[in-house]
C-alpha cells in the first residue's frame, strides 16, 4: 500500500512565524503535491514537484515555498504565516503525472 505521511496532524502558530510542513512517501513516486482545503473552496493546488529539486507553482503559490531535496520528501514552507493561511494542508504523491494521487492524513494549521 502507498503510504503518505505528514509530520503533524495539528499545528498552532502565530502570525509572522516561519512554518514547515513535512511530507514523506514510501512508494518511490515521481510526483508530489501540496494542496490546501477550505470549506466551500475545495482542494486548491499550491505547489507540485515532478522530480528532485524541481518545483512548479500551482494555482495559489503566493505566500508559500517548497523544497524537494530527496525524492521521498516534499516540504511546504510558510515564510511568514498569516491568519488567512489557516487551513487544512494535504500532501499527495503519484507515480506519474496523470495517475491517481494518494493523499496523506492532512495537517490542520491554525495561525493566530
Amino acid at each position: 500500500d502507498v503510504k503518505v505521511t505528514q509530520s503533524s496532524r495539528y499545528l498552532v502558530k502565530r502570525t509572522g512565524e516561519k512554518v514547515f510542513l513535512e511530507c514523506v512517501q514510501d512508494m518511490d513516486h515521481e510526483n508530489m503535491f501540496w494542496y490546501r482545503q477550505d470549506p466551500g473552496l475545495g482542494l486548491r493546488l499550491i505547489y507540485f514537484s515532478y522530480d528532485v529539486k524541481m518545483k512548479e507553482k500551482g494555482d495559489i503559490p503566493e505566500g508559500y515555498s517548497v523544497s524537494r531535496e530527496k525524492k521521498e520528501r516534499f516540504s511546504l514552507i510558510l515564510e511568514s504565516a498569516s491568519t488567512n493561511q489557516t487551513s487544512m494542508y494535504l500532501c499527495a504523491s503519484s507515480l506519474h503525472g496523470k495517475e491517481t494521487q494518494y493523499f496523506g492524513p492532512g495537517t490542520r494549521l491554525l495561525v493566530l
Partner: protein
Amino acid sequence: GESVGLHLPTLSVQEGDNSIINCAYSNSASDYFIWYKQESGKGPQFIIDIRSNMDKRQGQRVTVLLNKTVKHLSLQIAATQPGDSAVYFCAEAWGGLIFGQGTTLQVKP
C-alpha cells in the same frame, strides 16, 4: 478554466439503500477519472478510477459509470453502510488532477 462539479452538496440515504453520487466534468478531452472518499478529519482516500475507453467499472460495493456524451460521471454505492458517511470527490485528469467540490453522504441508521 476547466471545472469539475458535483450536482448535490449533500445526499442523505437510509442504511441498506443504494447511493448514487453524480459529477459533471467540462473537459471532453479528459481521459481519466477518479473518485475519492474523505472522512472527517482525514485525507482523501482513493476509491475507484475509470479511463475514458470504458463506460463502467466495478469494485467492491462500488460502481463508477462514465457517460462521455454528456460528460457525466457517477459513483454508485450498493447497500450503503454507516461507514460510508463521508465527503465524496470526483477528479478529472487534465494536466494534473482537477477536483470537484464534493458531496457529503449522510447515512441514516
